[in-house]
């Protein structure tokens, strides 16, 4: 690769369209004869629909039809229970989308949805996760395929023998993905072909699922996802909206638009499971850890098993000869939890990185020093070498920039007027993986190039990053390159998820571009008018990767202030230093990192799904009542990265940084609150009422 575009800051290619409102999202494409759908959520938690009366809805002027399990087109069974919508009368959770009203206007559809009369036979339900739930079981594996439990050495004996022991339980609530653009689809059937404009994190997967569900060839489904307004994991797999829209369009024989409401994003699209996590650390008086154990409990639904890999983070983070991790699950009458930014690592790191802080306090040593003392030389889990591991560099560089030196370890001793001041740190890591992808590169006679790959830009800047990578791989200025993404007609590629997007896609792009250069090198004479195209796939290369521990690392630092009268917690400053391989575009990389840290502040202080067991759902299901961190809560936030060249990753040398930002942040905040107040809140979010009841507050 010639040095060039990669590594230099570049604004998003589609930035202008987005800020001027001309970029089109899934339900914004102008269409003749379009109809509007509105989903009807179940009002029962567990049971069966005994009767549906659509007549009052059909009486609303403009309503065309009401789809439900009694009349909806049939879908193939066995694809994914979550997507087997409107096929049977069983209700698995409150809010399950059980009917769909299609109308000439969105207002009529919405009004119609109120008037669909549904009767249920209900059964007793269970919707609250508890540590002693009778339904606790051991899943076969945890997301996305990790072993459920691991053990090394003899944890119990080593913990028992340890000089210093920390044995604590942390809880996290349900967190709800709230992308700005809801799950939304425009569906059209034309001569047996299904055309979808859909909001997702990977349209290749949507194409495959819809083809299976409707039992048509993949080529008969086209999914266009040019611009996507976020997903945070919740659009990583096809969800209800796209299936419902396709069903409705088939039924009415006209195009259908469906966008879920904000309220409907609290459940049917997935969410981060609540967790109950017991962490035990046993060390000598100097903080050298002999025994680590992380036992995680989370929930799934009765529809599909989703097992959050909460304790996996602990397997590879710090050294200790004796270690154990376990995962237990309960099937509740709730929507299926799913991916939310750094599933597993995010809640798991909150627990482990908090427990590390508790251990540092118990040993009376600096929490950064504690982490350095427990730095492993090889992956403690698998014994593989690290492709690169720069946690210590992140910690020390962060400490320098943040001004960590000479920090007073004692809690509750710093005051600034009415504010108690404290600082906290946490480590973080996130796997650096890649999925197989395909791409094509074309050279045209006029000196221009076209690179095609079905990558998805969910707002991250992926389109721009791939464009820069392609230019360098072709050895030409970016202006001569055209990049096309976001359409299932393009060469297939994996989802924008797991921080694998740029790593996976750039790999295929680089290979296609390199092969094109080779081809052109052997070519003489002018190119044909349609250009010369080469296709590349990374399937073999990705499969042949040497087993190694590949992770991005980070260190987050926070300074908080806590009002001594009211317990209000505010974040003075947040700083993160990351080691994530090569940074393709500093502008959008920084956005990902500060976005991740902001979401971590949100997790620590603001977000919480409040469940009402009697109704079996979350009562705060809009953005006025489900608080997320706002601009005023982020007073100063900085992200830096250390230079990292890692030859064992992928051709572009990237690790991905969509998720690492959130991973340690909640722990850094919790640790800072403890440093400020002396109070350790072990169930998130750290709300003022959890502080003012304690002895440190009057």
């Amino acid at each position, binding site marked *: 690769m010639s040095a060039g575009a990669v590594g230099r800051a570049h604004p998003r290619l589609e930035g202008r369209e987005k800020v001027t409102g001309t970029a089109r999202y899934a339900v914004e494409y102008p269409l003749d004869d379009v109809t509007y759908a509105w989903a009807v959520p179940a*009002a029962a938690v567990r049971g069966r629909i005994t009767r549906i009366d659509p007549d009052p809805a059909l009486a609303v*002027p403009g309503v065309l039809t009401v789809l439900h399990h009694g009349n909806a087109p049939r879908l193939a069974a066995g694809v994914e229970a979550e997507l087997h919508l409107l096929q049977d009368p069983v209700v698995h959770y409150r809010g399950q989308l059980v009917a769909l009203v299609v109308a000439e206007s969105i*207002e009529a559809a*919405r*009004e119609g949805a*109120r008037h669909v009369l549904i009767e249920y036979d209900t059964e007793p339900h269970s919707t609250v996760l508890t540590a002693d739930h009778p339904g606790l079981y051991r899943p076969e594996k945890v997301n996305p395929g990790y072993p459920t439990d691991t053990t090394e050495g003899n944890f119990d004996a080593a913990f028992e023998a340890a000089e210093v022991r920390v044995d604590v339980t942390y809880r996290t609530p349900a967190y709800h993905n709230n992308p700005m653009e809801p799950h939304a689809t425009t569906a059209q059937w034309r001569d047996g072909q299904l055309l979808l404009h859909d909001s997702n994190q990977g349209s290749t997967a949507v194409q495959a699922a819809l083809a299976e569900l409707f039992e048509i060839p993949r080529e008969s489904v086209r999914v266009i996802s040019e611009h996507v307004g976020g997903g945070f994991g919740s659009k990583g797999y096809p969800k209800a909206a796209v299936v419902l829209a396709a069903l409705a369009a088939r039924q009415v024989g006209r195009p259908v638009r469906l966008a879920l409401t904000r309220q409907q994003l609290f459940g049917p699209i997935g969410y981060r499971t609540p967790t109950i996590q017991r962490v035990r650390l046993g060390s000598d008086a100097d903080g050298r850890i002999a025994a680590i154990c992380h036992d995680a409990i989370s929930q799934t639904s009765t529809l599909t098993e989703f097992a959050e890999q909460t304790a996996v983070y602990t397997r590879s983070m710090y050294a200790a000869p004796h270690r154990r991790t376990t995962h237990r699950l309960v099937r509740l009458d709730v929507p299926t939890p799913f991916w939310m930014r750094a599933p597993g690592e995010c809640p798991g790191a909150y627990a482990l990185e908090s427990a590390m802080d508790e251990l540092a306090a118990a040993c009376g040593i600096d929490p950064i020093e504690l982490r350095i003392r427990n730095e492993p030389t090889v992956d403690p889990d698998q014994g593989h070498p690290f492709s690169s591991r720069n946690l210590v560099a992140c910690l020390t560089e962060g400490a320098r920039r943040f001004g960590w030196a000479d920090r007073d370890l004692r809690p509750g001793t710093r005051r600034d007027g*009415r504010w108690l001041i404290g600082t906290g740190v946490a480590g973080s890591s996130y796997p650096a993986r890649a999925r197989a992808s395909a791409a094509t590169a074309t050279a045209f006679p006029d000196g221009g190039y076209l690179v095609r790959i079905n990558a998805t830009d969910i707002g991250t800047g992926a389109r721009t990053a791939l464009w820069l990578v392609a230019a360098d791989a072709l050895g030409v200025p970016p202006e001569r390159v055209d990049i096309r993404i976001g359409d299932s007609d393009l060469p297939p590629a994996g989802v924008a998820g797991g921080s694998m997007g740029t790593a996976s896609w750039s790999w295929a792009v680089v290979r296609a571009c390199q092969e094109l250069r080779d081809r052109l090198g052997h070519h003489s004479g002018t190119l044909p008018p349609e250009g010369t195209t080469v296709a590349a796939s990374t399937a073999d290369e990705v499969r042949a990767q040497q087993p190694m521990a590949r992770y991005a690392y980070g260190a987050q630092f926070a300074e908080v202030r806590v009002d001594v*009268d*009211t*317990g*209000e917690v*505010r974040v003075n400053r947040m700083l993160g230093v990351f080691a994530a391989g090569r940074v393709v575009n500093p502008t959008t990389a920084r956005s990902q990192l500060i976005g991740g840290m902001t979401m971590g502040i949100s997790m620590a*202080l*603001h977000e919480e799904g*409040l469940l*009402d067991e*009697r*109704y079996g759902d979350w*009562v*705060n*299901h*809009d953005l*006025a*009542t489900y*608080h997320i*961190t*706002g*601009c*005023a*809560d982020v007073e100063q936030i900085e992200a830096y990265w250390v230079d990292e060249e890692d030859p064992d990753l992928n051709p572009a040398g990237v690790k991905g940084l969509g998720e690492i930002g959130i991973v340690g942040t909640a722990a850094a905040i919790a640790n800072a609150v403890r440093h400020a107040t002396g109070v350790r809140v072990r169930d998130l979010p750290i*709300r*003022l*009422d959890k502080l*003012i*009841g304690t002895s440190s507050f*009057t």
Partner: protein
Amino acid sequence: MREFRYRRPADVDEAVALLGEDPEAAYLAGGTNLVDLMKLGVQRPDLLVDVTRLPLDAVEPLPDGGLRVGATVRNSDLAAHPVVRRDYPVLARALLAAASGQVRNMATTAGNLLQRTRCYYFQDTGKACNKREPGSGCAARHGQNRDLAILDWSEQCVATHPSDLAVALAALDAVVEVAEPDGTRDVPFVKLHRSPGEHPERETTLRRGALITAVRLPPLPAARRSTYLKVRDRASFAFAVGSVAAVLDLDGDVVRDVRLAYGAVAHRPWRAYQAEAALRGRQFTPELAGQAADAELAVARPLTHNGFKVPLIRAVTVRALTELAESRA
């Protein structure tokens, strides 16, 4: 959403008449609360009578030294008004502590006072709420009630009034000017909102179809030293977890006059008369402020999840008054 008609009356009489003719009509001001509730199906008017073009958007100083605020004055404009900022800082602060810049640009004085509770159960038609559907029960009584009332609630309703502005107006002894089909009348602000009692669906003492035309602030020179402290779960764009509006008039160390009102503790903005009585005529100390708050909160009956509001309101009362006392030095 129910289909509705829309009218834009030319004057107050026409507006009042339109509402008088149609029992399902509603006034539309900034729409920041009403339209949300219409989308949720909580309110289903068949006619919206837009009051924002009525000539009710002036802020006028009155000959007695008070101030008259038109019903449709936007929250942002009122907060920025120089007389408000100088003479009634508690009002400006309460306004600026509320919602977001965008919402305040739309929200009007009257609409703010008549906004509905933010109780989760009221806003969800799938759940029991006596306020929304009399007789259906109060799901909040034993549900998620951390944000709800500690004072004056009933078994039928534990909701709180969400407005910040209203707390300041309660402290200032404002008067509400109302137009009704048979004429106009003045309603003391502290009499505008009702206790929930047996009928939480009746939120104000206004008659159906009454139009608020203005809010009058009596002259209160002491209010130049006034403040509004709001406790919230994030730095901005959050309703109060608890709030205190305070005016303190000291003669040397002695409390000559004091006005205190609490927000987010009851079905109506809560004027803290007991606390005021405990302070008036006595030498001010932070300890006295705490005792005054205790006097007011002695009758508090916390719900399952909001016991913390009692010490919280106490602490904020002490802080607000102490800050005012110190600012006089």
